[in-house]
């Protein structure tokens, strides 16, 4: 009996409670994605002078669960012209990318419970930023596969647009991150957060990089000013026109999970992660400080998510050529200027 107990404990406590941390992050992500859908509908309603969903649960708070349940009960249709294997693979890939990216983003500094040093990140890897860049650019395959394998012209156009958009904006995104990495001298997300102590947040140190990264993040997540892959008026539903039931729900969930990742990434890279300026001067106990820092991180992410939704219901969609000229003629040079600016800062102040 004791042997079984020891074995179970060894599994649970493996690598600083890795399994428990994964479960917590996954549940948090799924819940956040579900409530993002709810708040998206609510905020869009408020902006358009409506009330929004208010029938299921208190003030409609269970609406997204009802939606998921409805989608589960729907018929799963695969078109005759579709390449069935890739058609099935695409939503899985979208979800895989959305869920795995979160592994390297730190929620807070490490905490110490009963002698165990527990880092508040699933994997503290020293190439974290590269890992995120690699996976988010893998995400475009999900959309392109979905567009190509559906055997429909609308889906194909959506997939092509998505890949073109991703290529254009990945570059300015990468160069913006270059500025951050120059300052922190590390690709480790935790080191990047720790380099932004006090008010030295990257958003204030390199505002141009912040703006270019923010805009690229909008393009990467296919959110509204750049949601050409699913432009409803032109392409019916874009890349997910031919998807129904749970496969459609997977794309939907992946979109919101991507939004969450983009927000946490912006907070980590530019808004100081879990850091609250001058909190150590208040003289609080270390446990309270950590709790406040986690709350601060979540608050920053929540505000950024609200910004994402807010922008979506304010700005109209770009035309395809405008999107390309913005990406190559504005965003790309701006991110290069940002790198030069950061280099100057380092040269003058020797940070």
């Amino acid at each position, binding site marked *: 009996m004791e042997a079984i107990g020891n074995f179970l404990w060894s599994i649970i406590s493996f690598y600083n409670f890795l399994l428990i941390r994964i479960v917590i992050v996954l549940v948090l992500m799924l819940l956040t994605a579900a409530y993002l859908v709810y708040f998206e509908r609510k*905020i869009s309603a*408020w*902006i*358009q*002078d*409506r*009330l929004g969903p*208010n029938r299921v649960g208190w003030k409609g708070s269970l609406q997204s669960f009802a939606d998921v349940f409805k989608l589960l009960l729907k018929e799963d249709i695969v078109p005759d012209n579709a390449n069935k294997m890739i058609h099935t693979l695409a939503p899985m890939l979208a979800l895989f990318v959305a869920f795995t990216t979160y592994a390297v983003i730190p929620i807070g500094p490490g905490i110490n419970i009963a002698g165990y040093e527990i880092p508040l990140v699933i994997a503290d890897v020293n190439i974290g930023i590269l890992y995120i860049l690699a996976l988010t650019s893998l995400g475009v395959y999900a959309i392109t596969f979905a567009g190509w394998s559906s055997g429909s012209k609308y889906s194909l156009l959506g997939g092509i647009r998505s890949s073109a958009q991703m290529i254009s904006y990945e570059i300015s995104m990468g160069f913006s991150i270059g500025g951050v990495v120059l300052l922190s001298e590390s690709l480790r997300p935790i080191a990047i957060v720790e380099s932004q102590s006090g008010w030295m947040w990257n958003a204030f140190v390199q505002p141009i990089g912040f*703006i270019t990264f923010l805009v690229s993040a909008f393009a990467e997540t296919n959110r509204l000013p750049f949601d050409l892959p699913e432009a409803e008026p032109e392409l019916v539903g874009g890349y997910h026109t031919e998807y129904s039931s749970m496969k459609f729900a997977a794309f939907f969930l992946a979109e919101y999970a991507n939004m969450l990742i983009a927000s946490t990434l912006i907070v980590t890279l530019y808004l100081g992660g879990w850091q609250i300026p001058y909190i150590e001067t208040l003289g609080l106990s270390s446990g309270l400080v950590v709790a406040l820092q986690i709350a601060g991180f979540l608050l920053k992410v929540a505000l950024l998510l609200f910004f994402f939704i*807010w*922008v979506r*219901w*304010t*700005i109209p969609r770009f035309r395809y050529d405008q999107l390309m000229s913005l990406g190559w003629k504005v965003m790309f040079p701006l991110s290069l200027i940002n790198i030069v600016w950061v280099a100057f800062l380092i040269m003058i102040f020797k940070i």
Partner: protein
Amino acid sequence: MSEKNIPAKKRIKDLTLLEKVYVPEIFKGLALTLKTMFRPKFTMEYPEEKFIPPSSYRGRPILVMEKNGEERCVACGLCARVCPPLAIEVQASETENEKERYPVRFEINMLRCIFCGFCEEVCPEEAIIMSMDYELAFTNREDAVYGKDKLLVPVNQSSDKIGFLRSYR
């Protein structure tokens, strides 16, 4: 005609530099949507909160029931005569009362009724009036034919409407 003769098309409004930068314009839009978000909403949450119509409203037609429990209608048939979609059917009979006539059968087919209010206008006795009731739903055609049981409504329930009719007619 040479190219020179065609006047260059003037744009109605050339964009200023600030507008071309686009970012300030984005913030203007964001401010507008944020302001709209906190505006009170006009939506009426219907089943919980019901619309109370003004007394000039033309809801479903009803027959006025006097305080003694009898209808005011004298079965003259004018309403049935004037009804454009022929929704009203009246069958008259005699009674010992002072008014001498009453409808044995009075049916309005609510699937036919167009809520024009002609019956109300033509009625010499103020016996058929358009009520303020707008919640009309039936599950079959038979239920849609309203007989005297559904049409008769006590006079005190529609005093607003009768008052309106007297002041504006």
